[in-house]
């Protein structure tokens, strides 16, 4: 993980004609303002309604098709023709490729500072790779590397790099307590990485992340995103008796509010004016709703394209 800086950006130039300046990938940031439930259907486990996760890491994701559907729906409410141009219709493919939203930072309860935003080298590396594909760090821009950040090497399991606001010092021990686990602090969360992440959003709660970022090993991060999601119990009430309806109890898993995701949006070769329509849509709609159970307020996310 430590030598990732040497990895070359993937060279899938969207435009083979060098005289035309290629349009670059942009990153869509999604910050959950209420819990998010992108369901994975029913389950036979303890949780009746689990969320969709990446198979190999267990990280929660929002599929690209989900994001595309939400964006398309928002646009078609204003202008159906625009939506068809940007997102396609039968016999006319869309002009934009929408990637899966991957997790970047996840809120966990902390003994000190009330809560921490955890992240891991794998999540950061994925963000950096997506940025490298975007205009921001294109090789054509000199010194563009300074705008980005260096992915720190992976800490050992049960150790972390942590901000001051969540670090406890007592009896010569220095650590962070997340839920019921202790992590030894091996150093501060890297400054340039924190600066970069904090600049991504203007949200009041995200600004509180200053000093609350904690870098865990990929495995420890996976533990929390697998096991520290919200599980809420629901039951139906019979209106005539006011008592619970038998057999109607279920529990529902959701990604907690204040989780940060990112997804790459890439204009395809045939994309021209469509990109502006998409940018306008996202700029004019700072909140969009993703996933299920919208009627009970789930899935409202701040969105930003950068």
């Amino acid at each position, binding site marked *: 993980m430590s030598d990732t800086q040497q990895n070359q950006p993937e060279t899938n130039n969207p435009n083979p004609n060098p005289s035309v300046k290629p349009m670059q990938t942009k990153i869509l940031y999604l910050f959950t303002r209420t819990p998010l439930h992108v369901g994975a259907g029913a389950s036979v486990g303890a949780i009746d309604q689990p969320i969709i996760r990446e198979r190999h890491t267990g990280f929660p994701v929002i599929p690209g098709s989900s994001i595309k559907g939400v964006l398309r729906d928002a646009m078609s409410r204003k202008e159906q023709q625009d939506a068809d141009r940007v997102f396609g219709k039968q016999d006319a493919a869309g002009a934009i490729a929408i990637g899966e939203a991957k997790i970047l930072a996840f809120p966990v309860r902390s003994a000190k500072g009330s809560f921490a935003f955890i992240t891991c080298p794998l999540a950061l590396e994925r963000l950096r790779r997506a940025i490298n594909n975007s205009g921001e760090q294109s090789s054509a821009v000199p010194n563009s590397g300074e705008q980005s950040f260096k992915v720190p090497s992976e800490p050992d399991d049960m150790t972390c790099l942590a901000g001051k606001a969540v670090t406890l010092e*007592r009896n010569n021990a220095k650590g962070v307590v997340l839920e019921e686990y202790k992590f030894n602090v091996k150093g501060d969360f890297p400054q340039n990485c924190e600066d970069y992440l904090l600049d991504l959003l203007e949200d009041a709660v995200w600004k*509180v992340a200053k000093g609350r970022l904690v870098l865990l090993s990929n495995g420890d991060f996976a533990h929390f995103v697998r096991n520290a999601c919200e599980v809420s119990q629901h039951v139906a*009430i019979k209106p005539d008796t006011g008592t619970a309806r038998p057999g109607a109890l279920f529990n529902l898993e959701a990604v907690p509010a204040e989780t940060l995701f990112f997804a790459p949006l890439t204009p395809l070769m045939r994309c021209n004016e469509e990109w502006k329509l998409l940018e306008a849509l996202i700029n004019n709609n700072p909140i969009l709703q993703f996933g299920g159970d919208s009627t009970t307020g789930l899935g409202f996310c701040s969105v930003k394209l950068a």
Partner: protein
Amino acid sequence: MRAALKNPRIMEATMIPMSKDVRELIGPWAEQVDNRALLYEKYALPKVWGEPRKIDNAGRWNVLRIVTRGSALLSEDAQRLRSEANGPNVQPEVAEKKRTYARIAESMAKVGKFDTDLVQAWNENAQKFMDDLRKSYPERLVTFEATLQSRLMINMAGGVVENAGICLDRCFGLPFLPGSAVKGIARNQALWEIKRASGQEKKKLLDAALLLFGYAKPDLSRNGAFGWAAGADLGNTVTLTRGTNEFKGLACFLPAYPTTKPKLVVDLVNSHYPNYYKGRHPNASDNEEPRPNYFPAVESGCSFGFAVVLTRWFNGLPLSEEEILGHARKWIENALTKNGAGAKTAAGYGWFQVGRTAPTQAQPAAGMNKATPADAFIDQWRGKLNTKDNFPAALPAMNQLDDDGLKRAFEAVIPEQERRRLRRKNPYWQSFTSGRHAEAGKSILKRLNLQLT
């Protein structure tokens, strides 16, 4: 290990279960933990653990540790126990037990400092969220504030401490109303209003509710929610004649976050007849020892921001967006002000007033003290409207009450045996239909749909 168990101080230092490395960092009593939700759910003091005896006060102290003045209250408990232990005629083992408990209470009084800047950030966040929603859904959004007039409890049944749960935001440790709770009380209110309405009004309310809350096939059956509320009228609504028997609600009911600084307090239910309720005594006699159970509650005076968004819309619906949102707002408001939200609403908890207002009374059950004209009427006339007294004098005042009030007053002040025999020849009912106040009396009977036979 045996030796350690004999030393009460060492034993006390491991009474809150956690691993050794965590204990070293946050202290044996989790005194460094400053997240209320975490403290309450992961670092609670068990009733039985390490100590051979059951710790009676564990439940109370767990609650005290997370409430706003908790540290001071725990210190007071410690002081009281200590002075009791030093009192005259105390058995040595009782005194020792009290001293141990005093030490535990004192240790638990050292709680982490809850960060007030975070409250500020969260209040600001709630505000910005509303502003952003307005940009994304202009004219499809209704927001308003409501202020608690009594204490509030939500998710009481959940949690680690039995029947003493509270809905706290995980990150901030602050109370809020989940969207499902807001939708639930609004829908319940709508169903009852539909049930009580008739004619065109009933159909209108039904249309609005079907569109707002959505429905699935079981809701439309005779015993389903809408089937129960609407009865035979259900088939005639505009919405259902469109031929679908499942529909997702147009409205999103968002969680209500506090817009002012919330205060948590300790509250209790005190079971006076524990053995009677357990079936050990045939009668509830007053010589049983009361058994207090403590739980946390949100103190009255805190304001919450409510929001409903229409994320879906179609042309050709029987109601306009404005009308639909108007119904949503009214149903939430009626539910909050007339039925309350959360647990124990029948005991006066969870009652609100619309707007950001000062609390009328900083006491539990304040919601019950709101004197409506109907309540005043009932207070004045309860037990007096028998055949002996000159009861027809009350009829004009009774007729002035609104429909809800009239119904309540009628049931409260007219003796039950008279209400069961609605005979024209009955002297009681004759005073309704003839005499000086006959006009008011007849009007009351008509408004209540009562026919004398």
